[in-house]
């Protein structure tokens, strides 16, 4: 929600500067996402969350907050005292559904569909709204000013009475932006004697659209049930600034002020307008109600030592009327300004909301001091499956396995998503095989980058099957260049047996094995101590992963006496240049010559990769020529 300092000044004449507003709002009310400098003032983009979306998705609501936290005086905006004429008829309205809480309508004659005045289009521009004409723009402006949505119909196009009713099955309407909607029976609509004029609280229709020839309008200022608006908006897939406010329970209390504000602003622009009596159907006026809070409970909840008089002062800042019935017992009059009450249940717990408001007036940063946290004793235990999986991690890492994590959603499984994010991610995995197979392929390819010929990986993760529900599996997989001595699967099996997990095998191939570790349903009985995972560094110097392929080159040579004194691995990295990302010795042996002297032979593998491009043979060859030249200059004999 963007607020514009020029509009806020309507409510607070001596508005503090934007820096102050930013700090006050952040610490006591709403997160400030951005401040945008405009020609005349600043637009402040605020994150208004659902607890305050009923009253603070408006300049009025934000201005009240500013007044609370700065002590500035808050004024309501000017409105019109109506002088209706009998020459203009009042609007006949029938409200046939309880989903409409209040319906106000006023017929206004002699209006002009003129371009909006400069002040109005400037403000709408700052608030990212398109200017259409004065009649429509004023409803839009007032929505942002006061929060209450309104709508204007061309009065000549409305036939007979206005009826607020639920749609008939299959009834259709065309929206102002030319979308064809087919309505269902639970949707609330505004209709005349012929057809649907608007989808209540969501979108106006083409039928009674204001156009260049419009001379008289019907101004609608109404309130609709929040759940109904939310459901209908979802169903037709249209969400508007109006529907957003209604679904957040915008109060019906302020409809009259809003309607009078419209007439006031329109009359200033178009003094010749005339209007009839207001129609106001408001069967169950929403009343303020009383809630009790105590000084004791407030202090217990917040961890403060406020006195009753301090609490009373804060309530006054919040514009909350209150009386102290007994020492430390306050009866607070609650209305729609701060409390978004949707149910009897909400009302029951409103005292906690008041305490919350007191907390933020104090300020959670500066206003509430820390009270020493004392650990509960004896506590601090870990649910067994976490201890067990961490034990397994330690065992596997000690045996040279690399842990990976893969995705839960894939193209096969037993439990299916209603709303998958992609066609090949429709299912929750029922085993780890697919993810691990891909991981193994990548790991095998990348093995030289990690300085390995063989590579073994593992994953521990949840899977879901219809029969067993949610279960934790362990999968091992590996690649070995030479399987003469021991096959991959034998390594995997031996590993499992060493760590005591060779039962409960779910799946096995020549390079893969998956076992069940634990049913994921023994969740809460924490009973074991934490297992420390064995690892080296607390902080890691992360190297970004290249998306380009790497190349390897091997070099073998007899090592000279001079070279024996050096750290060849280090020196190789230097000589081969920045493209060389890894050097590993992969072979070493001593050869006895005929004359009885011994020669040490070593073989190194160099891995080349760029962060920016795919390397060519030529580029790598140049690097290798440098390496060869330098190694020879150390007296080594390249083989």
């Amino acid at each position: 929600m963007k607020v514009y300092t020029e509009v806020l000044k309507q409510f607070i004449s001596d508005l503090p500067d934007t820096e102050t507003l930013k700090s006050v709002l952040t610490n006591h009310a709403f997160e400030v996402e951005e401040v945008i400098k405009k020609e005349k003032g600043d637009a402040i983009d605020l994150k208004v969350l659902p607890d305050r979306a009923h009253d603070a998705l408006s300049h009025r609501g934000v201005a009240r907050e500013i007044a609370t936290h700065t002590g500035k005086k808050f004024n309501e905006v000017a409105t019109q005292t109506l002088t209706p004429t009998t020459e203009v008829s009042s609007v006949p309205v029938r409200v046939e559904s309880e989903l409409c809480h209040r319906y106000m309508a006023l017929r206004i004659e002699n209006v002009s569909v003129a371009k909006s005045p400069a002040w109005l289009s400037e403000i709408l521009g700052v608030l990212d709204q398109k200017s259409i004409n004065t009649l429509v723009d004023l409803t839009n402006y007032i929505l942002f000013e006061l929060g209450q949505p309104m709508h204007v119909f061309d009065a000549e196009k409305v036939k007979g009475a206005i009826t607020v009713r639920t749609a008939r099955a299959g009834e259709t309407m065309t929206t102002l932006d030319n979308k064809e909607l087919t309505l269902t029976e639970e949707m609330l609509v505004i209709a005349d004697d012929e057809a649907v004029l608007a989808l209540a609280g969501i979108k106006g229709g083409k039928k009674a659209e204001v156009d260049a020839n419009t001379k008289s309008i019907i101004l609608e200022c109404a309130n609709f049930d929040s759940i109904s608006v939310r459901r209908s908006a979802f169903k037709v897939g249209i969400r508007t600034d109006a529907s957003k406010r209604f679904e957040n329970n915008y109060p019906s209390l302020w409809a009259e002020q809003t309607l009078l504000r419209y007439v006031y602003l329109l009359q200033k622009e178009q003094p010749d307008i005339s209007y009839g009596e207001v129609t106001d159907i408001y069967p169950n006026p929403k009343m303020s109600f009383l809630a009790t809070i105590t000084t004791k409970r407030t202090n217990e909840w917040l961890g403060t030592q406020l006195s009753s008089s301090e609490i009373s002062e804060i309530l006054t800042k919040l514009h909350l009327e209150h009386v102290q019935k007994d020492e430390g017992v306050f009866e607070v009059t609650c209305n729609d300004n701060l409390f978004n009450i949707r149910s009897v249940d909400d009302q029951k717990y409103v005292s906690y909301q008041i305490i919350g408001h007191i907390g933020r007036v104090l300020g959670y940063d500066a206003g509430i001091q820390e009270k020493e946290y004392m650990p509960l004793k004896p506590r601090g235990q870990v649910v067994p499956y976490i201890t067990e999986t961490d034990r397994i991690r330690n065992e596997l890492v000690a045996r040279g396995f690399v842990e990976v994590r893969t995705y839960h959603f894939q193209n096969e499984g037993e439990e299916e998503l209603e709303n998958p994010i992609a066609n090949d991610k429709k299912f929750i995995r029922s085993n780890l095989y697919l993810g691990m197979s891909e991981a193994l392929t990548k790991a095998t390819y990348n093995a030289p980058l990690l300085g390995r010929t063989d590579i073994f990986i593992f994953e521990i993760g949840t899977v879901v099957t219809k029969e067993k529900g949610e279960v934790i599996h362990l999968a091992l997989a590996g690649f070995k260049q030479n399987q003469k001595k021991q096959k991959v699967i034998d390594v995997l099996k031996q590993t499992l047996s060493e760590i005591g997990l060779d039962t409960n095998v779910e799946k096995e191939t020549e390079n893969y094995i998956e076992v069940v570790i634990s049913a994921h349903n023994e969740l809460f009985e924490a009973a074991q101590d934490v297992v420390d995972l064995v690892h080296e560094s607390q902080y890691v110097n992360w190297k970004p992963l290249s998306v380009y392929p790497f190349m390897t080159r091997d070099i073998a040579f007899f090592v000279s006496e001079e070279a024996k004194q050096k750290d060849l691995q280090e020196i190789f990295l230097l000589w081969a240049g920045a493209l060389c990302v890894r050097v590993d010795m992969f072979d070493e042996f001593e050869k006895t010559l005929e004359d009885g002297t011994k020669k040490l032979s070593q073989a190194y593998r160099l891995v080349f990769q760029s962060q920016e491009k795919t390397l060519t043979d030529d580029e790598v060859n140049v690097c290798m020529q440098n390496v060869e030249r330098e190694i020879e200059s150390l007296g080594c004999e390249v083989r």
Partner: protein
Amino acid sequence: MEQKGHLHPLSILINDITQAGVKLGFDIVDGPELEQEKYNFDMLNIPSWHPARDMWDTFWVKTLAEKGRRVMRTHTSSVQPRYMESHTPPFAVLVPGKVFRYEPTDATHEAQFFQLDGFMVGKDVSVATMKSFFAQFFSELFKKEINVRMRPSYFPFVEPGVEVDMSCFKCGGSGCNTCKHTGWIEIMGAGMIHPKVLVACGLNPEEWQGFAFGVGIDRIAMMKYGIDDVRHLYNGDVRVSAQF
């Protein structure tokens, strides 16, 4: 040639969290990832019609007639009602676990990630206790003195709700790239457990009160280790773990 094994960075971080929590007297538990709607939403004061549901983009799982609606849990806060309805306070619990959000992925967003939810319920657990706990917990986790500050916010299952910022664990508050030169890191949401949630779990809010918080583990991992793309954590790439 290299023969060393490697842990996944998330395993290391979750283990660090577990150790810090245990040291401060918290039990470490978990609940199911495929969760009933009532634990993920309704019992946390997020009824189906409430606009607050928009705060979580949810994966729904096809329903079996007898089981009611099911979701991939959108937060490990789902374990709060599960735990509270079957235990008597006082208790202090941490839940590190995998959660799911229906959203397109990019370098900073994943459809699956890890979240730490924590809650403590007792006789005199207050906003002031919560603030002190956070400072201690993060100091323990990052092995250095961390300060916290809180700002008002809103989550349906707490009253009041706060956003928690912590002093930057890299620069200590003097300003660096990790904290975007502000000295502070927006780290998590928290608040006093809403009395409605306590009641839904069979606890009397006049008798018991406590705080709850939720923090993204992947985000901490990315900041702590400098990992540039969250997708690296789940694409099964050994080049990730090999750096740890």
